[in-house]
Structures are given as C-alpha cells and as structure tokens.
C-alpha cells in the first residue's frame, strides 16, 4: 500500500525486510541498555540518599518498579501485536507477540520475587493475598498460559490465532493491576509516580528509577528483536523442510 508521501508503511511488515533492519537496531539498544543500567545502579546504590521511612530497604524499588512496569507494558504490547496479527493476518505481528512473551514473563517473575523480598522486612510477610500481588501473579499465569497454548498446538497458524485471543482477553488484567491500589484497600502502597500528580519521592530517586526503566526498555527491545529474528529463521527453515518433503 503506497501512501501519498510515497512511503510504504507495510514494507517493514514483511519478515524478510524486517530481519536485517532488526539486526542493525539490536547492537545500539544492547549497548545503551548496558550503559543506562550501570548508570541507574550507580545512582540507586551510591548516590540516592537513605529513605526516611524505609531506610536502605527502599533501594529495592530501583529494580522492582521498572520490572513491574515492564511486566505490564510488555503484556499490553504483546496483546497489541497479537491483535494486529488477528486483524491483518500478519505473520510478523504474531512473531513479535511470541517474542515479547518470555521477556514479559521474566519481568513479572522479577517483580514478584523482588516484591516478596521487600514485603518480608517491611510487612513481615513474604506474600499476602492482596489485590496488587494477586493480580500480578495472575499476569504470570497469563504469560505461562500463552506459551503453553502455543506449545500445545502443532499447526503454527492455529497456535498463533488461539494464543492471540488469549493474550487479548487477558489484557483486561493489566488495568486491574495498575488501578488495584486505588480500587481496593491494598497492603501494597499506592503509586509514587503517576502521570497526573507530582511524584511523591526525591528527584534523585526518581531519576535513578527512570534511568533503570529506560535501561530495561532498551534491554527488552534488544532481546525481543534477537528472539524475533530467531523465530523468523526457525519458521522459514520449517517451511523449507516442508517444501522439500513435498
């Protein structure tokens, strides 16, 4: 489809064109991710002052909050790609959704474990069945369900479609996680950073957290692109073997 400007928006929707483009983006993202994560760690562990309420224990937020953000954000992104796959029947969209899932699940696990390590000294319990924690655990199960469904169906086309529907239906859980601290009386504290209010934390703490978050974002882009390139090769190879068999 050609637009008036002459730029073909669908050109990069083809796995063959996308493969080398992704290859060029990966090193830049990987290097900047490493630099930002090291810088974020430096701020979080050396520069940021002690919290007046939570002492040094609060430093967990420098990994916990960015991981929790990306557990939710990557799920939404996965659902968007899955939805685009269903609407346009685009193979690359399904492959992107498939490639995002493991990284999303990884950040969900990190958010849960670091949250637990924060909960023990602050609340006195590793785990409570609070709305925020429970909905985040459901997010992990949704990711696991997504992989399992894909693995359970042999026909790739059907596996893509079925898991895309699961990803879309499960997306309802993300706003539930995000707003759980407002909607229910949770033990988990409310948001310290929101789009509508001034952040309720020192500027340097916020800076460290945001730098870590951008680092995690670039890490996610690099890892997802490496995985999607791998996925393209695998599917291409299977198709080639299938053709030879005929």
């Amino acid at each position, binding site marked *: 489809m050609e637009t008036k400007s002459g730029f073909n928006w669908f050109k990069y929707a083809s796995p063959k064109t996308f493969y080398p483009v992704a290859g060029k983006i990966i090193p830049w993202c990987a290097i900047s991710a490493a630099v930002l994560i090291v810088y974020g760690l430096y701020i979080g562990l050396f520069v940021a002052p002690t919290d007046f309420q939570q*002492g040094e224990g609060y430093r967990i937020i420098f990994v916990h909050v960015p991981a929790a953000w990306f557990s939710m954000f990557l799920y939404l992104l996965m659902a968007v790609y899955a939805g685009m796959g269903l609407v346009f029947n685009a193979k690359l969209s399904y492959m992107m959704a498939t490639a995002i899932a493991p*990284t999303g699940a990884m950040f969900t696990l990190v958010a849960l474990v670091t949250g637990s390590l924060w909960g023990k000294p602050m609340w006195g319990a590793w785990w409570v069945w609070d709305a925020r924690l429970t909905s985040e655990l459901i997010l992990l199960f949704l990711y696991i369900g997504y992989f399992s469904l894909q693995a359970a169906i042999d026909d790739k086309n059907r596996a893509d479609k079925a898991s895309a529907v699961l990803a879309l239906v499960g997306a309802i859980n993300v706003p539930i996680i995000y707003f759980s601290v407002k909607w229910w009386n949770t033990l988990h504290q409310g948001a310290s950073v929101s789009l509508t209010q001034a952040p309720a934390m020192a500027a340097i703490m916020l800076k460290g957290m945001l730098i870590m978050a951008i680092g995690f974002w670039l890490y996610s882009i690099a890892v997802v692109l490496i995985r999607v390139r791998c996925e393209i090769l695998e599917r291409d190879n299977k198709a080639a073997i299938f053709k030879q068999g005929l």
Partner: protein
Amino acid sequence: MQWHSLDEFLAMGGYGFYVWGSFGVTFLVMAIELWLLNKRCQHTSQEVKQEAI
C-alpha cells in the same frame, strides 16, 4: 556517595539480604534469559546451515 565503608555498603542498614537478594535475582534472571536465548539462536543457525548443505 552514601557510604563510609564497604561493610556499611554491604550491610545496607540491616536490609542487606533483601536488597542484595533483589538486585541479585533481577540480574541473574536477566542473565539466564540471555543465556537461553543465545543457546536457542546458535541451535537455529546450525539447523539453517545444515539445511543449506
């Protein structure tokens, strides 16, 4: 700089286990993801090479 000695840094005001545990788990899990991904990509590129022969 927040710390006066290495011991103070490692102790994290008594939260050492929890703080280092959190940072440790995060980067360990990320490293495992990279390791698994690397293994998968190597396996795939080998298969593609075999296919080409």
